[in-house]
């Protein structure tokens, strides 16, 4: 199977990456080469094989419900693109 240019634009939109038609065309070619490589997977019979999500078969460790963090807003916002009154500023959000 291969990706259409519309597929490329759709996933670029999902991933919030601006892409113009020329880039979409170039990307389409590259991605299809890569998916050609990936296609080797499809021939493998994996019936009954449990998916492996983690390198170790362990269970989640739990943290005690304790407040351990202090206010570091000044340090964190020192590297922020736009802040005011302690808030991060973004272009207006319309709900």
């Amino acid at each position, binding site marked *: 199977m291969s990706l259409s240019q519309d597929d490329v634009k759709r996933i670029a*939109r*999902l991933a*919030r990456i601006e892409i113009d038609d020329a880039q979409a065309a170039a990307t389409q070619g590259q991605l299809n080469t890569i998916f050609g490589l990936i296609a080797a997977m499809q021939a493998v019979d994996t019936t009954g094989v449990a998916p492996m*999500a*983690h390198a*170790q078969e*362990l*269970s*989640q*460790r*739990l*943290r*005690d*419900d*304790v*407040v*351990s*963090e202090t*206010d*570091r*807003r000044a340090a*964190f*916002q020192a590297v922020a693109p*736009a802040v*005011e*009154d*302690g*808030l*991060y*500023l*973004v*272009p*207006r*959000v*319309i*709900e």
Partner: protein
Amino acid sequence: MKWETVIGLEVHTQLATRSKIFSGSSTAFGAAPNTQASAVDIALPGVLPVLNKGAVECAIKFGLAIGATLNRVNIFDRKNYFYPDLPKGYQISQLAQPIVEGGALKIVVDGEEKTVRLTRAHMEEDAGKSLHEDFHGMTGIDLNRAGTPLLEIVSEPDMRSSAEAVAYAKALHTLVTWIGICDGNMMEGSFRVDANVSVRPVGQAEFGTRREIKNLNSFKFLQQAIDYEVRWQIETLEDGGRIEQATVLFDPDSGETRMMRSKEDAHDYRYFPDPDLLPVKLDDAWIARVQDELPELPAAMQARFVEAYGVSAYDAAVLTGSRALADYFEAAAQACGQGKLAANWVMGELSAALNRADLGIEQSPVSAAQLGALINRIHDGTLSGKLAKQVFEGLWEGTGEVDAIIEARGLKQMSDSGELEKIIDEVLAANPKSVEEFRAGKDKAFNALVGQVMRATKGRANPAQVNDLLKAKLG
């Protein structure tokens, strides 16, 4: 055409933990913006989540309380979408293997009991808040709420009216606050309801297309929003229109619902298991430990109240409207040994006074022990019901304990029959007309005489005793 409404609710309850679900930040409400947003909460590069045990225990408690299946292995997934109040660009949630599946909740609407089935409940993290005040045309983002633990509780589409939806939401609210996993504060967003609403012609088996009303933060809005939405959907269909699946917001000012613009393309969340978090495993010993911490649940308590205190099923349901109320009632009932009387006082005089003062049971100026002492004085004949109300007022105003108030105000019921007889004689002497009328067969005259005696004793006479003595004397 007759239409049937179908409603399912998704309720986001903020779990009453001290710290966030994946970081050690405080969850306290109302801090200055972004002062409770740690490196993990603002998703600095390189940070990682570690799961809060307290949040898991809240979810276990809920699962036990609704008789659900607790998945011994449950998994956190990433729900990917971009939004400025979602710092990582994904929300950590549970999709395929949630911690809680199944269970049910009983509701009563118009005296009819109904069971609402629950689909699932899963743990996830809350998002931050977008503040839409004008910052030169920009929106401000506060991430203090980001990472607050949520239990999202999803019902089956089992409700058929807004009244049923409200009853279910209230029962759920009672339960989550009862078992202490949520503070229930709807104004602060601790209990937020999304309603999936559809309509279908009566008799049709398949569901209509649903629209989801987001973020309803009061029972009143829940009712209004559903009622509006149902009317709108029926009108649309009757006008030959179609319902498109959509996410809508309810505007309390206009009383209408409207489409959410920001959700237009939220259709492909690309869920996958979060590689930063391992499967959460629950073992029987842990579940048993949490079970031991669980208080007696409303349904069990209702049955016990009927059994132990002789109250009606209806009263038992009212008294278990919240755990604080139930605890209050039980303490009062135990203090006096008079369950029915205690129930009457709690649901009558006390509730009325609390309502007038806009206070919750937790803030009652009259303690359960005081109310119990008051009821004792009624039971032992010291106080008539009328006098007791005066004592209650004294307790409410904080003027002292029951016996001291009785003493100070001279409210003690007369028990000395000699003194009472003397007063009765005086009343009979002063009202010969009434005596005559009574003897002529007019029962009303007897009541007038009782009233005179009560007035003369300033209400302190025991009405039964007055009756007996009067009858004897007029005999």
